């Protein structure tokens, strides 16, 4: 399996953000997107997630499920966590486990338990998500990665508001994912301490007048 982008051009409004970018990530590898603020890391990740249609160029997942789009085989963790404050931690994860149906035969309840354990949310399982601290909410958002098995993880600043321990949990989850031949693309300016990681340095695009 390989995620490949070829001569990708991304435009927002009249601004060209990414111009002629090509890269490939092999199964079992993580790609860290680095570069200064505003360089287009979020835009690139959102394009891979299918929210933004490239002005030209292609993004492909070779060797994935032929019937599914790239977005349907990806997890996207953006700036928002996508969790309901009036549902409990467990209810939130159970909904996404059902909604993001995965291909494995693992029972829904087990997937939720694994996700709770993976980000040490067990003790919080019956608490409404609205009562969590910012860091706990972020862990809940990240736990979505584990409720459904999807080969591509797209992480946009995943370590925001995480403490050191939680960052380790995330690094461990990412590590297990690449070990089982998953693909991770992460925009972060904190080193996650990931093994099997390549780096893609984005540089500001100079608009040609």
């Amino acid at each position, binding site marked *: 399996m390989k995620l490949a982008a070829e001569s990708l051009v991304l435009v927002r409004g009249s601004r060209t953000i990414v111009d002629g970018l090509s890269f490939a990530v092999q199964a079992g590898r993580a790609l860290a997107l680095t570069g200064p603020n505003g360089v287009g890391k979020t835009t690139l990740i959102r394009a891979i997630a299918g929210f933004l249609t490239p002005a030209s160029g292609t993004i492909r997942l070779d060797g994935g499920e032929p019937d599914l789009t790239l977005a349907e085989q990806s997890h*996207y963790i953006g700036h928002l966590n*996508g*969790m309901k404050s*009036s549902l409990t931690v467990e209810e939130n994860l159970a909904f996404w486990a059902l909604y*993001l*149906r995965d291909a494995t035969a693992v029972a829904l309840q087990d997937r939720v338990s694994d996700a709770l354990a993976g980000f040490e949310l067990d003790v919080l399982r019956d608490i409404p998500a609205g009562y969590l601290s910012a860091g706990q909410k972020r862990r809940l958002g990240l736990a979505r990665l584990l409720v459904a098995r999807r080969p591509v993880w797209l992480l946009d600043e995943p370590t925001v508001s995480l403490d050191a321990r939680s960052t380790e949990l995330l690094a461990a989850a990412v590590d297990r994912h690449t070990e089982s031949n998953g693909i991770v693309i992460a925009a972060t300016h904190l080193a996650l301490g990931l093994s099997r990681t390549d780096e893609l340095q984005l540089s500001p695009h100079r608009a040609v007048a």
Partner: protein
Amino acid sequence: MRGAFATFVALVRRDLVLAVREGGALGTALGFFLIVVALMPLGLGPDLNLLSRIASGVLWIALLLAALLSLPRIFEADYEDGALEVMAMGELPMEMVAAAKSLAHWISTGIPLALMAPMLGILLNLDLASAPVLVATMLAGTPAISFLGSIGAALTLKARRGGLLLALLVLPLYIPTLIFGISTVNAASLASDSFWPSFAILVALSLGSAVLGPIAAAAAVKFQIQ
């Protein structure tokens, strides 16, 4: 296909649970409905014949306005907390997501408003014999409010304080439902032959909007989350 149906049901159920737990939307809509109807006799004077003649029309218009208040909630909360983006990456097509959320809106807002109408009708000296017909037309007509309203809700997602814009966008779309809702009630009270044709058109409007509304709303949502 079975999986898609289970996902659809899960989404409807989640929206209903949220509507119950967060409560505010339905309370506001019902309260608004009550206030608008209660203001009518104060403004028009205590002429019972006049009030009972216009009761069904006033109730229908007040119901439209009350439902309008709660329309932004179809997509807004999920847009603001990022859940809509995750839904866009699921296997359920965005059209079905929009349909599920509109259906949940109808169940949590349209049905309670319709059931409350005869009680408010007492304030307007509504002929109680026509109350069942009024409720029937409202139950048949309110799906159009939710499904057409979802288009406006999706289009105004990014607009700050988009409520007024939403009203301007969707109220014109409700005109056919309003016309045939009232004409069905009138036909029933006159025992005229046109009851069933009017009622059938009212149902057809709801069914048509249940098909077309989600398609348009999904296109708008996809554009908004770019």
